[in-house]
């Protein structure tokens, strides 16, 4: 049985549906990260699990108990908030011990729990201070410490690192991973930062528009995105998308062209798969790291527009003039390519955009990945 189980959770505010039937389960000790763009419902889902939002239908259970209707404090969860939510009028120790104090635990037990949590987080020196005397990172540790003292079944994190600067953020990522290992606790972590998701998660839940798009391990999501949305969301820099059209149907082979041009790719559909219709709009996706001046398929000739040296690698944005990416991260439909730094590209330089055929991912008009369609060489 799963440790945390969410079944068909629906959340509506009047006419507006924020969660439309979400289900997933987390195993004991698993670190699950929920990602998605803002407004996708991930925070609402987290807060529904915490009991801070009342759900319209569905159920939530933790460790086998149905807690759908329980008070937040009776659910066995602890939450770490984005803005820390430390009580300004209490010291660090009082903040961390507050839940136990409310539960009328004996003084000695509270002290012991606070001391232990402080040791884990290395904030023992700050126990007597008030939150306003702490730095952002220290505040976040206290917020985590407050969760630890409660010894919850499930830890909930609501974008806990988004208020920290970059260096501190990566440090805290490592700490959180260490903490997860040490405590062996079930953690549900909400973020919009895919790096956090990729680096910390055992499993990632990608949410979009109140639905779960895909659940899987970080590499699963990267390598086998279930939808165009997941493909676009996971991976940095973002995947290049190119609008394509079905221009030829022959048996189980479907020919695609880019824009008005001649067919570029043929797809071989596995038996049983629904074939697209002639004239259907589909999308081709290719990751920037797969795009370069080598490869079997020539996409287009282009002119380098912007070069961003990232250090080990260089990100090159090129303008193909006749062919534009859609849904692009950069402006103007430029193609993004991640190339080794030695390649020494300069703006204005002519390049050829090429890639291996296996690097292409094809998405149907509804956004679903056509996994069972494999590109074959044409020409």
């Amino acid at each position, binding site marked *: 049985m799963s440790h945390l189980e969410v079944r068909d959770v629906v959340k509506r505010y009047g006419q507006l549906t924020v969660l439309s039937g979400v289900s997933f389960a987390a195993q004991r000790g698993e670190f699950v990260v929920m990602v998605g763009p803002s407004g996708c419902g991930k925070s609402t889902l987290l807060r529904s699990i915490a009991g801070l939002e009342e759900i319209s239908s569905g159920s939530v259970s933790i*460790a086998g108990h149905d807690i759908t209707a329980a008070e937040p404090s009776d659910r066995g969860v602890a939450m770490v908030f984005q803005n820390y939510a430390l009580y300004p009028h209490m010291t660090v120790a009082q903040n961390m011990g507050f839940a136990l104090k409310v539960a009328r635990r004996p003084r000695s037990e509270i002290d012991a729990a606070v001391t232990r949590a402080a040791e884990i987080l290395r904030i023992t020196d700050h126990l007597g201070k008030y939150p306003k005397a702490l730095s952002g990172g220290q505040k976040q540790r206290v917020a985590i410490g407050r969760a630890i003292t409660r010894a919850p*079944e499930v830890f909930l994190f609501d974008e806990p690192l988004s208020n920290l600067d970059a260096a501190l953020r990566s440090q805290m990522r490592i700490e959180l991973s260490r903490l997860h290992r040490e405590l*062996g606790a079930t953690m549900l972590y909400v973020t919009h930062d895919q790096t956090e998701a990729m680096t910390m998660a055992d499993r990632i839940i990608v949410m979009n528009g109140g639905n779960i798009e895909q659940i899987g391990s970080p590499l699963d999501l990267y390598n086998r995105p279930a939808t165009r949305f997941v493909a676009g969301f996971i991976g940095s820099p973002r995947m290049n998308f190119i609008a394509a059209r079905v221009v030829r149907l022959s048996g189980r082979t479907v020919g695609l062209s880019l824009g008005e041009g001649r067919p570029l790719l043929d797809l071989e559909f596995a038996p049983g798969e629904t074939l697209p219709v002639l004239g259907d709009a589909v999308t081709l996706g290719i990751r920037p790291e797969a795009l370069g001046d080598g490869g079997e398929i020539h996409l287009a000739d282009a002119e380098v527009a912007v070069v961003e040296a990232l250090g080990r690698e260089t990100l090159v944005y090129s303008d193909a003039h006749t062919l534009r990416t859609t849904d692009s991260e950069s402006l103007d439909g430029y193609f993004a390519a991640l190339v080794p730094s030695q390649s020494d590209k300069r703006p204005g330089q002519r390049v050829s955009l090429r890639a291996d055929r296996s690097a292409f991912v094809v998405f149907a008009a509804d956004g679903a990945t056509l996994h069972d369609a494999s590109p074959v060489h044409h020409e």
Partner: protein
Amino acid sequence: MPLPPTPTITGTSSARRPALTAGSLTATAMMAPALILIGVFILIPAVVAVIGSFFDFSMTSANWTYVGGDNYRRAVTDPLFWLAISNNVFIVVGSVISQVGGGAILAAILDRGIRRGNVVYRTIIFMPVVISSIAVAFVWMLILDPNVGPLNAVVKALGLPTPRLGWLGDPSISLWMLLLIAAWQNVGFQMMLILAGLQAIPREHYEAASLDGARGLKAFWYITLPGIRNVLVLATLITVIGGFKVFDLVFVTTGGGPANATQVLGTYTYTQAFAFGNMGYANAMAVVLLVTAVLLGWLQVRLSRRA
């Protein structure tokens, strides 16, 4: 490090109710003290006043005679009622200009123009707010006295003419004096309110505006004014409602005189009720005042919510 085995989930035992509206009983209980007090001491008397406005009775007599809308008809034809209303309107308009305007000017100066002595100034200017209207009225009566008052002495020393009938004895001047006293007492409050609003405007807005070339008046127009719009609405409405409710000040300084010249709804109602014993008529006028004031209160909510 393993977690201590603390069983924390007790959720299954709760009845099936939504977690966060669970406190609606508590919510009602938390609202209760305020609602009960308001109900008993404001609502019930207000309702009784409305009922009383349809009767003819004196405070000391036990007989209530139902007269329908007579009291309201009487008000319509009573020139003093209209005079009182126009005096109220005068005070309202004058107070908004003098108090909100004056308060805004002082606040603007203290916010941007002056650094030294800021706290001292603002403390002193606010001080009259905490002095009782009774005290204010007595002190000003002394100051405005035509025979021995300092104001006359100062005006005479400047070689200017003093009003023959006295500052409070001349019907054409006494209302202005009430405005002056009210301003003396209340400008500090409005100043503080507006100052608080001004200080809540982020400095970056001014910096950005000044990079865009908007300084001085332009910055005031495009940054300051929109930034304190809500505060100004609130200040204005507090002043307007206060202007309609004005009582203590008029009651003690002029008693509505000379010869009713400064009668306002509050004092005229009081006179009709307690001096003449026309409780029904007084109630009818009180209801007019009540409705006006409540409408203004409603307006306040509307205006501040929209913002």
